[in-house]
């Protein structure tokens, strides 16, 4: 499981946790997060603004 960080505001998406509030189940891989999804903190779109990979599998 990996984490991805928003380059604009530092929000972290953790694949292990997903975003259950937004219908993204725990364990959802970054590739499977919908392209229309955007950073829940600052709104940076997934498609236009990359998140940086911060941690590789444990």
């Amino acid at each position: 499981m990996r984490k991805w960080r928003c380059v604009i505001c530092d929000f972290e998406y953790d694949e292990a946790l997903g975003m259950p509030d937004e219908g993204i189940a725990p364990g959802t891989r970054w590739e499977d997060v919908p392209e229309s999804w955007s950073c829940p903190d600052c709104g940076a779109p997934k498609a236009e603004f990359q998140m940086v990979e911060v941690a590789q599998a444990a």
Partner: protein
Amino acid sequence: MSKLLPGAWRDGKRYLWLLGIAAMALPMIGGLLAEHTGLSLFWWFTPLFIYLGVPLLDALVGEDRNNPPDAVVPALEKDRYYRWAVYAAVPFEYASLIWGAWTAATQTLAWWEYLGLAISVGMATGIAIAIAHELGHKTDPFEQWLAKIALAPTGYGHFYSEHNRGHHVRVATPEDPASSRYGESFYAFLPRTIAGGIRSAIAIEKARMARRGLPFWSWRNDVLNAWAMTPVLFTALIVAFGWKALPFLLIQAIYGFSLLEVVNYLEHYGLCRQKLPGGRYERCQPTHSWNSNHVFSNVFLYGLERHSDHHANPLRGYEALRHFDGSPQLPNGYAGMILLAYCPPLWFAVMNPKVRAHYDGNLSLANVKPSLRARLQLQGAA
């Protein structure tokens, strides 16, 4: 509408955006008028124009609810013209500051003329924070540096970090120092937002530097490197023109950042995001910012008043910001609303009913001043 080809739509405001550059030159225009007419009043030209002329023009010219069709937005955002229309404002901001420092230090001015000059330049450097704002949202390093340069005259370099990583994340929640609360006057909000913004910026940079394995005291620290520009700039101007420029520099800086803070005050007054079951706040929607479509003040501020779309879609360029029917609307542009904010009883009389109407009378959904919240809950329980 959606069938329109990109080429068929014309941006009616394309050349009006250049007025944002003219706004930076207002203090020099005032100085020229004062010199040629001999009337001292013209040292106050900028505040007079902004506070009397702009609200009047906003009322006369009215609103523009026109949105660019979705099909043209990508082309609009790729058009470099709109970026250059912002870059060009920064040299004019510096021209006004340098001219102002020279005038303050070397010309014989009565104290009220000196004060008028400092307030006039402070309005330009304060409005320039809106320019820094437009630049600071971009990921291009040139624009990020230009944002810090535009902030240096007001000493508000930390805005660059705090705005994106602090304010945008916590906007319209009780945790955000830069979101004003229902029942909070501008004068109560001002010290809270100044201190809270600095504290938040330092915490954000501390965490960011630690994550990169760098010490806090480093040139890579975005708060420190942006702040450092201000003493360098002020020292250079004092060395060049003399000590008499110092009060001018301080007055324009304080007035300038206070102008930004009064704009912060009116952008989210009383609006609140609700907490989700998981403990996070709901996403920022257009309904979490006050919007204004008044044409005249919007072109001065690079569309900043279309604030609802900006917070919901912070990477959208100013030229592509949209009006949403569902977002709460301010009754005038920012210039007129600032005058109201300076006079709390008038502000409360106009805006409190609007907040209540927005939440259908249910103030428990609003961002309410804590002491007032306690009193309202007591009333509810009785």
